[in-house]
């Protein structure tokens, strides 16, 4: 029984390792599931105690039979480590659906989805809901960081075509995902109908945005920032925008027109191996 439109108690109906370091979590929360749109996220309390005290944001990767939502996550720190111990049948509190979600492309557009690292979950959901089959690019540093096989399978079933790249060539094509994207765009007769949606590490999204902007292709990015409230009140999740000032990832985002983001802003967010990157 939700106590309000965004606060829910969900039952864990599935929770398992999904390969390549990811875990898949399915939460039964009917009202949330029927409201959720691709690109939206949830704030999940990983513990009933106050250690840790803040909820964690996760993108929704699928809605299952309008009853449950699916999440994919990586254990990167204390919160996700705790989450990974939660068993089937357990109850978790969460808020959602939050954020704006991806803007729907025009009927005749060619949606291109670009996922880097752990950024694929919201794009998976988006792919499943798109009217016209998208072209999907999945990039990662190496094979071990790639999207799990189940998710690739799911992509394939919804996509017109799936391109896989790894920086070191250990899976798919060697090179950056932006190289493959550039090659595709520049070789495609449909370029003027393309709309790009990307989600992944900041550096990748910045690069994708540039590729898109250089070719006048509209592009959208799903941003990440540390979050406290998820409701737009703490102003903690701000990202700098070119117009000056900041926008809240949880409220005006997480999806932004790539051109509004000030990519020069320096940002520090943890990456999966526990080390920090700029």
């Amino acid at each position, binding site marked *: 029984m939700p106590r*309000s439109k965004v*606060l829910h108690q969900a039952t864990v109906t599935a929770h398992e390792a999904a390969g390549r370091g990811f875990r898949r979590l399915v939460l039964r929360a009917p009202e949330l599931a029927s409201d959720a749109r691709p690109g939206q996220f949830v704030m999940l309390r990983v513990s009933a105690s106050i250690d840790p005290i803040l909820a964690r944001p996760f993108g929704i990767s699928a809605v299952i039979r309008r009853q449950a939502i699916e999440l994919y996550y990586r254990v990167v720190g204390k919160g996700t480590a705790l989450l990974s111990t939660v068993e089937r049948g357990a109850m978790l509190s969460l808020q959602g659906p939050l954020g704006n979600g991806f803007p729907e492309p025009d009927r005749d557009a060619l949606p291109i989805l670009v996922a880097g690292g752990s950024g694929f979950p919201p794009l998976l959901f988006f792919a499943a809901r798109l009217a016209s089959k998208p072209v999907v690019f999945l990039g990662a540093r190496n094979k071990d960081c790639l999207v799990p096989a189940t998710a690739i399978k799911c992509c394939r079933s919804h996509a017109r075509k799936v391109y896989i790249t790894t920086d070191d060539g250990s899976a798919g094509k060697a090179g950056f995902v932006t190289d493959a994207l550039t090659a595709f765009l520049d070789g495609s007769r449909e370029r003027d109908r393309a709309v790009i949606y990307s989600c992944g590490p900041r550096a990748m999204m910045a690069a994708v945005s540039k590729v898109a902007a250089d070719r006048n292709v509209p592009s959208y990015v799903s941003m990440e920032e540390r979050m*406290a409230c998820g409701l737009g009140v*703490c*102003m*903690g999740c*701000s990202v700098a925008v070119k117009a000056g*000032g900041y926008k809240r990832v949880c409220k005006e985002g997480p999806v932004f027109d790539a051109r509004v983001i000030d990519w020069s802003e320096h940002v520090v967010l943890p990456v999966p191996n526990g080390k920090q990157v700029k």
Partner: protein
Amino acid sequence: MPIKIKTQPDLSVSLAGIRLKNPVLTASGTFGYGEEFKDVVDLNRLGGVIVKGVSLKAIKGNPPPRIWETPAGMLNAIGLENPGVDVFLSDKLPYLRRFDTAVLVNIFGYSLEDYVAVAERLEGVPGIAGLEVNISCPNVKAGGIVFGTNVKASFSLLSALRKATKLPLFAKLSPNVTDITEFARAAEDAGCDGLSLINTLLGMAIDVRCRKPRLANCTGGLSGPAIRPVAVRMVWQAARAVSIPIIGMGGILTAEDALEFILAGATAVAVGTANFVNPHATEDVAEGISAFLAEEHIGSVRELIGQARIP
């Protein structure tokens, strides 16, 4: 003597003349301007809303990262991002006016003149119950001094504000001081109608791999349950030093936490970081106080204000 009660316990309090239907308010900066919680909390159930700090002009705030989680708390260095008093009046206040709840406007400035100008803009505006004056944001430097850690500066500021407005004035004190009672008395002497405490403790966290502070601003304000014992102590000390009412806050998660502040001497309480932990926290605290009073056969929450006895 506790009154035998037949009906619901009475949660109403009078806060420097402002009638609150219950003593639970939202702490500034943790509840936006109320509208953000429209799908979550029924504002009619709250004693009042203290809005996010408002300044004369819009302020864009600090660069990210702005927050960091700490044991039983969090650091923030938002930098008081806000759209400015005019946008507050045109776009934010009208929503709040629709509810039967007291609206306290948290104000701040970079100079005494700034503060006064904001207070003047709010004077006589319908739907504003009072002003909470933030003299304690760890990140606002004003004319080279931080008002909140200098007794004389805070006295001058509050005195100037007293002349500028007839609205009830609550001075929001900083906990980052040696003796909170000095500041409490200075605020009372300056003619404030009440106190609000505590603001955040100045803190810092370091990313040991990057060898850099976790916040772009380097230091930030510590809030949440971690600081509650410090907050309860300061409310207790301040309540003994002055006779104006106190809005107590700092780490309140539950009704029991709120009752600690009330017993220490607070007339009302504000719920801050808890809104992020449990968006229903304010309603839950109000309901919990009511349940506690019923269970303990206490007729009115007013009977508990300042009632903790020294052992």
